[in-house]
């Protein structure tokens, strides 16, 4: 029976100082890594520890929140159905110019999840095949969930396009 603490220990043991931080809250464990180690850590979880499912990718903007050395985090929620255990990996993103490697080739769902994080936080995923907005409209300027985005800012609305109801380029 593998627990989340076991997973954290295995990751810590395997990656050593590449793990910037570990965190446990009510039995839920997570590790924080640098963008350079992300793919190695996720592939280790997938191939060695049975985390076959990437459930969610989310972003956090810690601007003005505390004294940490980076502004953003990208959070990868992992599930191992074989072992019935969950785990989360956080990537420390220093600022808006720091890029994170894509994992869409490991889990296809990461394609849309990373588009959402880019749409909301402006975090660029290196190697992503189609990094376009997915929730906001195409003419949207800025990234809405950044803490320095003014909540009352209004955006230019898009005009109807010729093919608005039969757009086909959007699937990939």
């Amino acid at each position: 029976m593998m627990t989340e603490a076991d997973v954290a220990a295995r990751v810590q043991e395997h990656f050593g100082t590449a793990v910037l931080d570990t965190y446990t809250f009510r039995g839920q464990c997570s590790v924080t890594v640098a963008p350079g180690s992300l793919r190695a850590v996720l592939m280790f979880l997938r191939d060695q520890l049975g985390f076959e499912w990437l459930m969610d990718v989310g972003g956090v903007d810690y601007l003005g929140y505390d004294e940490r050395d980076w502004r953003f985090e990208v959070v990868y929620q992992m599930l191992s159905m074989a072992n019935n255990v969950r785990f989360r990996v956080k990537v420390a993103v220093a600022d808006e110019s720091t890029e994170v490697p894509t994992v869409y080739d490991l889990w296809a769902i990461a394609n849309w999840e990373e588009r959402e994080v880019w749409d909301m936080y402006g975090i660029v995923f290196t190697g992503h095949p189609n990094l376009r907005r997915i929730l906001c409209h195409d003419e949207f300027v800025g990234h809405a969930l950044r803490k320095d985005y003014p909540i009352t800012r209004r955006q230019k609305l898009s005009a109807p396009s010729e093919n608005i109801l039969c757009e086909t380029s959007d699937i990939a």
Partner: protein
Amino acid sequence: MGLESHVSQPFLATRLDEVISWGRKYSMWPMPFGTACCAIEFMGVVSSRFDISRFGAELVRFSPRQADLLLVMGTITQKQAPVLKQIYDQMPNPKWVLSMGACASTGGFYDNYTTVQGIDEIIPVDVYVAGCPPRPENVIGAVVKIMEKIDREKAADWR
């Protein structure tokens, strides 16, 4: 006037605008653009208890080309705005717009980066209905308001 001697059957004299408005207002064809909970309330409006067919507007069409009353019911996001505009443009004249509820009329409490702050930023609106969601009586009241507006219109106002 002696007209009766020329026409064998009884007849009424009236104004053309009067007849046209009379026809229009008692047979509005609604196109529901329902995006949120107000559209659920609309089910009550058209169903037997409140029954919008008492006012001649029960024939709901799901093609804008067959409708003359656009019912916008719910939150309109900025991404959806061009769709709503296109739907409105596809409706043939004459046409009227009913903005149902707080979200469609003002954005409601979605005062944020993604929500249109009232559909009148995109299309003209004839009647706003307050409420979150409005009661069916309120919507029927708004339909009657539009009927009164049609009464004041002239056929030549529309082409």
